[in-house]
């Protein structure tokens, strides 16, 4: 079975040494008390919970899966419910929630750390509280006072969970085609009818009630995405005193059989005249739902970081123990039957690929989480706005770049094991299967790429991207003369310039032919992703250079990983830039009938 040690030192490095979050929080009134010691202690205890309670359920969840009973109720794998109860009793669900609703009011950054650990230990399990938190954020921002009163404390405590119900059998990416109906009942409530599919945590036995956030159309709604409204539909109707009342007409019609995340109940949900209330304004449902979708997209990035880390830990341990063949330079451990496979260059490539993708993703996601905290809590309006713009720009990159990389990384982790990687009991093939969904849900990675290039970059004529470019430029200017930094700054400056050129070129070509965006988007996102990682690795290298003579080998390992990244992974940009520039003709010239 796979093991997991919370990478606390790695996490502390990013939080305290790269981001200096403790100092920054002092300027944010609601986080003023969140100092270094507090952060460390919360991380330490969160790590104990993840490794001690959640990890042992990972393989059980994978082999057992969920069961739909005859009465359409769903039973989760053995132990899931008890672990969730302990999670709620321990207050983890409330970590980053509003104190007005009994939350702990702690930074998003800490929630991100918590979720990295939960996802390393059990992605399928972590999805239950993860989606609830998304539902909490959506209702917190767009709910009516009545909805907030009914739902928020229950979601914060974890007594109730939440879901997001978007997809229908005929409508996945294109929500404009959505058919579910909402009829006003005349008493302020609505009757919701329709079928939703792929509903993660749709029904289960872990909480006493579930609130579904459902997209549906009002009778007079316009066609397309401008006619979609959002509704809160409880599994059981809440009584006035907050207790659980009679059942609502919503049920799980079937469970999907999936490649991975078997422990999560992925449901077909039937709404048969179920009673719900409107969230936000009529026909502006997508706007409200985007709060949850953006949270979920960052959450998916965390899932993939979690899997990358745990795959790395297990394959690194295996590579140090597994004896096969001799080093090409002659035996390294002559007393043993063979050398451990970590002596082989390509095994190291596989390990370092995982490690670099884990370190890059950690620095990136923690930085963005820190930006979200800044956006929500910084006293200076300009800082808040700037941080918000960065988060908007970077969200599709977190979702797509990290999940692509995690599939590569978990695959490499499995490869390190040779044939044993394919055998279930080692746990490595589960990581690959679980990682695969992350490239698909919450908007496929192609959709993320179109969102980045079409909406976030070309949509404002590159304004947000230039602001990010300015951050990179300022960093380069500041560190240009720092001894030892040139090997990291040169590729960073190079890729920054190339992204700028590529953006202009694609933008110009797109004016003549809109399909150019569709052809260039995916390689474009890979290139911008590497720009972000180059920036993160350069920032980490700067800290590591300052401390490399401290006697702590941690810092020289940081530099080695950064060097590996720039030597072996970064150059993907060369090929992706060519692919992005190569236009659309080769894709479109063949007649569809010839496929």
């Amino acid at each position, binding site marked *: 079975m796979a093991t997991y*040690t919370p990478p*606390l*030192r790695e996490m502390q490095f990013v939080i305290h040494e790269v981001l200096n979050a403790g100092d920054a929080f002092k300027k944010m009134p609601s986080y003023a*008390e969140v100092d270094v*010691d*507090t952060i*460390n*202690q*919360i991380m*330490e*205890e969160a790590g*104990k*919970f993840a490794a*001690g*309670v959640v990890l042992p359920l990972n393989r059980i969840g994978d082999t057992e899966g969920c069961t739909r009973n005859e009465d359409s109720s769903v039973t989760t794998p053995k132990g899931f419910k008890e672990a969730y109860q*302990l999670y709620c*009793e*321990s*207050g*983890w669900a*409330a*970590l980053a929630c509003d104190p007005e609703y009994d939350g*702990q009011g702690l930074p998003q950054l800490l929630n991100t750390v918590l979720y990295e650990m939960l996802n390393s230990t059990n992605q399928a399990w972590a999805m239950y509280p993860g989606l609830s938190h998304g539902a909490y954020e959506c209702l917190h921002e767009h709910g009516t006072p009545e909805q907030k009163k009914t739902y928020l404390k229950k979601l914060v405590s974890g007594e109730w969970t939440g879901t997001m119900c978007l997809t229908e059998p005929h409508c996945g990416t294109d929500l404009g085609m959505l058919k579910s109906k909402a009829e006003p009942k005349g008493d302020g409530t609505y009757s919701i009818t329709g079928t939703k599919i792929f509903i993660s945590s749709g029904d289960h036995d872990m909480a006493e009630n579930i609130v579904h956030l459902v997209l549906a159309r009002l009778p007079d709604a316009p066609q397309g995405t401008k006619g979609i409204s959002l509704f809160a539909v409880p599994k059981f109707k809440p009584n006035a005193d907050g207790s659980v009342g009679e059942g609502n007409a919503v049920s799980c019609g079937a469970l999907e059989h999936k490649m991975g995340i078997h422990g999560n109940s992925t449901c077909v949900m039937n709404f048969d005249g179920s009673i719900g209330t409107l969230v936000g304004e009529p026909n502006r449902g997508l706007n409200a739902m985007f709060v949850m979708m953006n949270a979920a997209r960052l959450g998916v990035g965390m899932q993939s970081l979690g899997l990358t880390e745990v795959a790395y830990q297990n394959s690194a341990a295996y590579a140090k123990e597994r004896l096969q063949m001799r080093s090409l330079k002659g035996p390294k451990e002559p*007393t043993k039957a063979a050398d451990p496979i970590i002596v082989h260059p390509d095994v190291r490539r596989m390990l370092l690929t995982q490690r670099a993708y884990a370190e890059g993703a950690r620095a990136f996601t923690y930085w963005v989480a820190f930006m979200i905290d800044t956006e929500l809590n910084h006293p200076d309006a300009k800082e808040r706005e700037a941080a918000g713009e960065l988060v908007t720009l970077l969200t599709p990159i977190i979702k797509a770049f990290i999940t692509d990389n995690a599939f590569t990384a978990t695959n490499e982790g499995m490869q390190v094991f040779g044939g044993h990687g394919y055998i279930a009991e080692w746990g490595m093939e589960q990581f690959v299967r679980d990682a695969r969904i992350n490239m698909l849900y919450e908007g496929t990675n192609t959709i993320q790429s179109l969102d980045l290039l079409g909406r976030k970059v070309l949509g404002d004529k590159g304004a947000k991207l230039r602001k990010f470019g300015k951050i990179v430029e300022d960093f380069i200017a500041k560190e240009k003369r720092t001894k030892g930094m040139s090997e990291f700054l040169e590729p960073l400056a190079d890729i920054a310039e190339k992204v700028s050129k590529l953006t202009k070129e694609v933008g110009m070509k797109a004016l003549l032919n809109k399909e150019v965006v569709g052809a260039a988007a995916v390689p474009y996102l890979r290139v911008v992703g590497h720009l972000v990682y180059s920036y993160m690795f350069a920032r980490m290298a700067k800290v590591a250079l300052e401390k490399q003579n401290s*006697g*702590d*080998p*941690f810092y020289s390992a940081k530099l080695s990983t950064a060097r590996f990244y720039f030597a072996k992974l970064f150059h993907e940009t060369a090929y992706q830039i060519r692919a992005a520039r190569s236009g659309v003709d080769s894709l479109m010239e063949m007649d569809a009938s010839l496929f």
Partner: protein
Amino acid sequence: MKILVAVKRVVDFNVKVRVKADQSGVDLANVKMSMNPFDEIAIEEAVRLKEAGIATEVVVISAGPTQCQETLRTALAIGADRAILAETDAELQPLAVAKILKAVCEKEQPQLLIMGKQAIDDDSNQTGQMAAALLGWPQATFASKVVIANGEASVTREVDGGLETIALTLPAVVTTDLRLNEPRYATLPNIMKAKKKPLDVQPVAGMGIDVAPRLKTLKVAEPPKRSGGIKVADVAALVAKLKNEAKVI
């Protein structure tokens, strides 16, 4: 009833320790440190006694450098009410710690002093016994069950032959074994509350206690590397080798 729990900050159980090049000890630089797992059991037991209405206050003490405050905060997050750090950068051996505990017990007047039966770093298994001797209190080591009633502690001990139950008059010293309980996970609200609980730092230098080491470490070395095994022809050869070469039977 007041309970005093002694906790030690040690190398985390997950860490693979390395011997220093000069063989003067184990390399502690940049190594993750945690609460001694046996002491976690002691804290858990004290907090359970408080939750059961038997104890009224749980005070936790550690002796060592300023970083021990982290360990004390962990104990406060599990449920201790307040903490004392006997602060010193000097090396502390079990006798020195026992003397510090004696001084604190005389001041705090607890009815029960609980700690782990040993610490996972040096495995001395001495501090509890020495503290009991210095205080003149009865002691029950290797506890796997503790029942407090009528001014007495009934303690089940894990001894070589099985289980032994003894009764102690309070105040007494109890050292905990692994099976006494399973420590809880600290809750987030309690972690936050722990920040605000009192933590009193008292320099050991000001206590008037002689903490000078009585033992001198000559050398710390790694265990010898395991050499390869051999195959024997039959059981008789195996028995002969165990008898004559390994001299274990």
